């Protein structure tokens, strides 16, 4: 269990170029496994192009109250990158004119941005009706100033998507840190109390499951079934859906794969599970990712690898949706994570 980010540890992998080098070297350089480009070219998907833009995913900062061992953001308390109100204003300008209907707020812990609530209020005024907040749950219990978050979410009908790696304490705490499980359970109960996740409620509460180790997620529906029974029986917790998300070999998860000597097997498993049907619906085809400092990316993973969009327009300040829609999506071997099996996106499986 890491206690500091790669960046704070001055680890080689904090350098995104090192990560990209690693992902192109070895088994991909010697031809043992096909590159993602070659693989999608064979199924007629190269170059990968955007479809209709539906979601603006804004990363409001890399600061987080947790240091999860699988985090692709390399987030943690030591990360100081936080979106300023000025950049948020630029985002609001875009929100007023975009064709996207959903605003997806992520981080770090997005709630730790001091202007988080202001931004949600202003985005609501700007016409956003479909809000998503990717909450790590424990933030709701981290400090008294966050206790009112469930009520705040309710006021703006925010769709809460929460990380919950497992319905048992041991695996959760191993991946996310001691005490995370109990705090997450308490936070889920608080969300249930204000009406989130209850059957028939319009206040959506979905959980995100991602494996605690070097293996792919199992069947989403079967896992959802197990989670529902266990959380209801043990803690009287209700939620709507479970999204099974594959860990991508980026940042701290890549560090873990290398350190545990699982990298090659994991990449083999991803490549073997390649599903052309999943490529049709990968999230980079309907999402645009914006970083804390206003740069534009095809997805949050590309953001963490420093791969800005391949377009004349690269920054929110010069946003032009028509130009951006004409771009080719940037790919590398980490993309296999989104096309394995039933596929993986921030909304779970896609095929």
């Amino acid at each position, binding site marked *: 269990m890491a206690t500091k980010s790669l960046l704070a540890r001055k680890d080689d992998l904090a350098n995104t170029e090192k990560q990209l080098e690693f992902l192109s070297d070895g088994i991909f350089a010697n031809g043992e496994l096909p590159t993602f480009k070659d693989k999608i070219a064979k199924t007629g998907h190269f170059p990968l192009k955007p479809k209709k833009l539906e979601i603006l995913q804004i990363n409001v900062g890399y600061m987080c109250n947790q240091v999860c061992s699988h985090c692709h953001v390399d987030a943690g308390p030591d990360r100081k990158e936080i979106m300023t109100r000025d950049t948020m204003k630029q985002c609001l300008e875009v929100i007023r004119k975009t064709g996207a209907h959903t605003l997806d707020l992520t981080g770090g812990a997005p709630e730790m941005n001091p202007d988080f609530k202001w931004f949600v209020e202003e985005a609501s005024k700007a016409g956003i009706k479909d809000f998503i907040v990717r909450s790590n749950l424990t933030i709701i219990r981290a400090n008294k100033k966050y206790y009112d978050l469930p009520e705040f979410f309710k006021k703006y009908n925010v769709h809460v998507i929460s990380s919950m790696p*497992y319905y*048992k304490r041991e695996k959760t705490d191993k991946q996310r840190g001691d005490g995370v499980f109990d705090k997450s359970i308490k936070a889920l109960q608080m969300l249930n109390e204000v009406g989130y996740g209850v059957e028939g409620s319009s206040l959506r509460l979905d959980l995100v499951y991602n*494996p605690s*180790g070097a*293996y*792919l*997620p*199992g*069947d989403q529906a*079967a*896992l959802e079934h*197990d989670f529902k029974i266990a959380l209801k029986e043990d803690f009287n917790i209700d939620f709507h859906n479970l999204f099974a998300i594959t860990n991508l070999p980026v940042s701290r998860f890549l560090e873990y794969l290398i350190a545990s000597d699982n990298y090659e*097997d994991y990449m*083999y498993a991803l490549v*073997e599970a390649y599903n052309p049907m999943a490529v049709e619906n990968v999230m980079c085809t309907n999402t645009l990712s914006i970083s804390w400092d206003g740069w534009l990316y095809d997805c949050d993973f590309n953001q963490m690898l420093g791969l800005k969009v391949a377009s004349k327009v690269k920054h929110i300040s010069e946003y032009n949706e028509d130009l951006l829609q004409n771009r080719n999506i940037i790919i590398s071997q980490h993309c296999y994570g989104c096309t394995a099996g039933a596929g993986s996106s921030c909304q779970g499986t896609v095929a």
Partner: protein
Amino acid sequence: MQKTYYDPADLRKFGNITEWNEELGNKFFEYYGKVFEEGNLSSREKSLIALAVSHVVQCPYCIDAYTKSGLQKGVTKEEMMEAVHVGAAIKSGATLVHGVQMMNKYDKLSM
């Protein structure tokens, strides 16, 4: 030539057995895939049975594969170990029940 009988990386090459006999290889993998589909038994239950059998037949490839399969299906380590004990109990039971044969033979041969 490798100096050990088992190489973990060989598991990835399992599919290659079709190269030397495509028809039988394909038939096997089709059958194998069908067996593990959701049926009257869930694929989770089948995975646990496979794990227990893997230990009984002492197949290191199978143990790797069905430990990972169990993790994917949310099987706990306690459940996995119980399954291994079920396999071990049957295996030791199968040894011990032959003790009856030994006793029968002993009695028959003895005056």
